[in-house]
């Protein structure tokens, strides 16, 4: 009978466990670079959002410096960084997308509404490729070098600062590499 008064406390206890784990993970993910840094991009071959008959193969990422951006139409933060992606695409940065756990029609509508900065976007409906890429949450942005190695990972939306001080200088540097 008296147990009913304990329930809120117990529920709150569980919530705290969840928040502590979330906090530790958030710290970990920010402080420790992704284990994928310096490794080759995970292999995948997935139909694109633009055309389901056409495949986006991870081998295409070799031979040029490019960005891989994980996005979804349901992700509000993705909208925040989308303008920056459009700007970078216009200035000649090669951006590929991985559309994460999204409905095809939603994704297409999104691209037509906000502009499509991507050369192509893989339609990762099940999130299978996302697991290989170690996706923690959308959006995430990876910088890939000419050899197809992941050189940098940015978690969360890109802001002006990140673009100017990290992404663009790194792209310049990587383009200079042979």
């Amino acid at each position, binding site marked *: 009978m008296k147990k009913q*008064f304990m329930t809120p406390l117990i529920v709150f206890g569980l919530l705290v466990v969840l928040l502590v784990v979330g906090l530790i993970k*958030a710290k970990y993910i920010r402080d420790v670079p992704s284990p994928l840094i310096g490794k080759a991009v995970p292999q995948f071959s997935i139909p694109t959002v633009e055309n389901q008959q056409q495949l986006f193969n991870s081998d295409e990422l070799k031979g040029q410096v490019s960005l891989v951006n994980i996005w979804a139409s349901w992700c509000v933060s993705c909208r925040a960084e989308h303008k920056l992606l459009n700007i970078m695409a216009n200035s000649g940065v090669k951006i590929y997308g991985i559309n994460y756990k999204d409905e095809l029609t939603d994704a297409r509508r999104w691209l037509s509404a906000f502009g499509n900065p991507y050369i192509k976007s893989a339609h990762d409906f099940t999130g299978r490729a996302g697991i290989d890429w170690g996706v923690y949450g959308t959006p995430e942005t990876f910088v890939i070098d000419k050899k197809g190695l992941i050189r940098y990972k940015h978690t969360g939306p890109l802001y002006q600062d990140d673009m100017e001080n990290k992404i663009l200088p790194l792209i310049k540097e990587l383009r200079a590499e042979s």
Partner: protein
Amino acid sequence: MIPEIGNFSLIIALAVSIILAGLPLIGAQKNNLQLMQFSRYAVVTQFFLILVSFIALAYSFSIDDFSVLYVASNSNSALPMIYKISAVWGAHEGSLLLWLLILSSWTMAVAFFSKGLPLSMSSRVLAVMGLISIGFLLFIIFTSNPFERLFPAPMDGKDLNPLLQDFGLAIHPPMLYMGYVGFSVVFSITIAGLISGQLDSAWARWSRPWTVIAWLFLTLGIALGSWWAYYELGWGGWWFWDPVENASFMPWLIGTALLHSLIVTEKRGAFKSWTVLLSLMAFSLSLLGTFLVRSGVLVSVHAFASDPTRGSFILAFLVLVIGGSLMLYAIRGPSMSGGGNFNLFSKDTFMLLGNILLTVACAMVLLGTLYPLLDQMIDLGKLSVGEPYFNAVFVPIMLPALVIMSMAPLMRWKGDSFANVARKLLLPVIIAFFIGVGLLFIDKGSVMVSVSVALASLIFMSVITSFILRLRNKGNIGAAFKKIPLSFYGMNLAHTGVAIFIIGVTFTESMSLQKDLRMETGDTISLGGYSFTFEGAKSRQGPNYTAFEGAVSVMNPAGEPVAILKPQKRIYPVRGMPMTEAGIDAGLFRDLFVALAEQLDNGAWSLRIYYKPFIRWIWLGCIFMALGGLLAITDRRYRFNAVPGKAVPA
């Protein structure tokens, strides 16, 4: 020098808060009058110290003192003065200072309007509020100090985030915080009641006006945020189920449940433990919201300042405040006496049902918000928790709540007969039914549209019925009108607001039209019967931005000119950030919304054009709800100096 004064007075405020939290509590326990009376002085001192520090920060902004790190990161010499002031709360550190200032203002209000309360009670309430302010002062001083200096001082500041350079957003945080922090009053009253074991109908009556004020500010704050998102983000949407929006919506849902539950507890003495729990939850959810927004555990568009160290601090604070209060609830709860008996079919039961639905809705929003955290702990498989999830769980819970809302006000306390209620509701149900059926046949009508609008009309008819019932058989109608208490008007105004809101949401969501297209100068398209002609775009210079301003002339179906919309695409050079300013022609029944998307070749632009029917009703509904709250607290029965324990004549 000025920033140091600000910093120093924060530190003194901390010392005063410690005294405020400590001495009166001891005094109340030992029944020492002097110690208890001390709290009022401490409250006033604390308020002025925090005010000094707030003014010091605002002053540093107004004179462009870029040697202060916070000013340098959030202001610029070219920033217009009004935004220099609103920049005080434009980022993490300053918004916490605003939080604190509002908390101490609420504490002052409690100190001055609590003369009718027993001294032991009021000093306990003030002490609990003092405890909360200690937490926030420590947080500001040690992890988020806005007075930190920057050496060498930069020539100019990095400018305020252009998203925040807007009038709506300048007043949105203060409103919202008034709501969040306002719940700390009910929280403190309840904690004081739990400590002293005095949770009677006086406790409920005393809590009600504070709850309603906090709730009405929160309502306005959320509505302002939604309005801002609509015209500033350029997506034409009004709600995104973003974690930060959810953080403000959860306390609102619980606050709404609480203010209804308090009515039952005051009038009938029932649901006491439930009301206590809700009043603890309303503030706890406000704190949880702060944690989610500030700690960076969830990625959000609003996460302008997230930092895991701050996160650990707030989490520890959460555990102390929420855990502590729930512990107190677990210990003291069982001794709370249950209230009067009531039948299954009664106003009491229906109020409880409505409450439960609101709480379940809140739990669903919480689950959806925290889902990304759960998902990384245990892989739950594919479930995208964006809008589709929230709409799918939220709407089915809210529909029965609307039915309850139209019934409960017409029911009797304690017990009522079905036949009696059915008789009162017969006409409203018939009218609502025909409205619903009629809506099935209009263009783009659907079951969802017809059900929602029918329910909204049912609520509205129920409001009218309740007035008719009040005035019937009263002879002199004029005199009978005068006898109706203000709180009755308040309730009905707020309920009408809900009906207006539902209609706004239904039509906006189901009948909006949208076109994204490329337009060259002179091109004309039609949307929703209106024709839009693009007259070209030219560049313009603002005080701290450059812009392309387009001109789109609009003609209505009859071919008469309606408006010339001037959407802008701005670049703020300091941050290099592009911003969209939509051109909107607002109307009671429809908005026409044009945004410039991208500049294309030779003078062509891609434009987004929206036709949004009834969207104003969404915010109008919120204003009605807030006004209803305002009327309710002006009712004489809830004057703050009402003596508790004694029956107060209406």
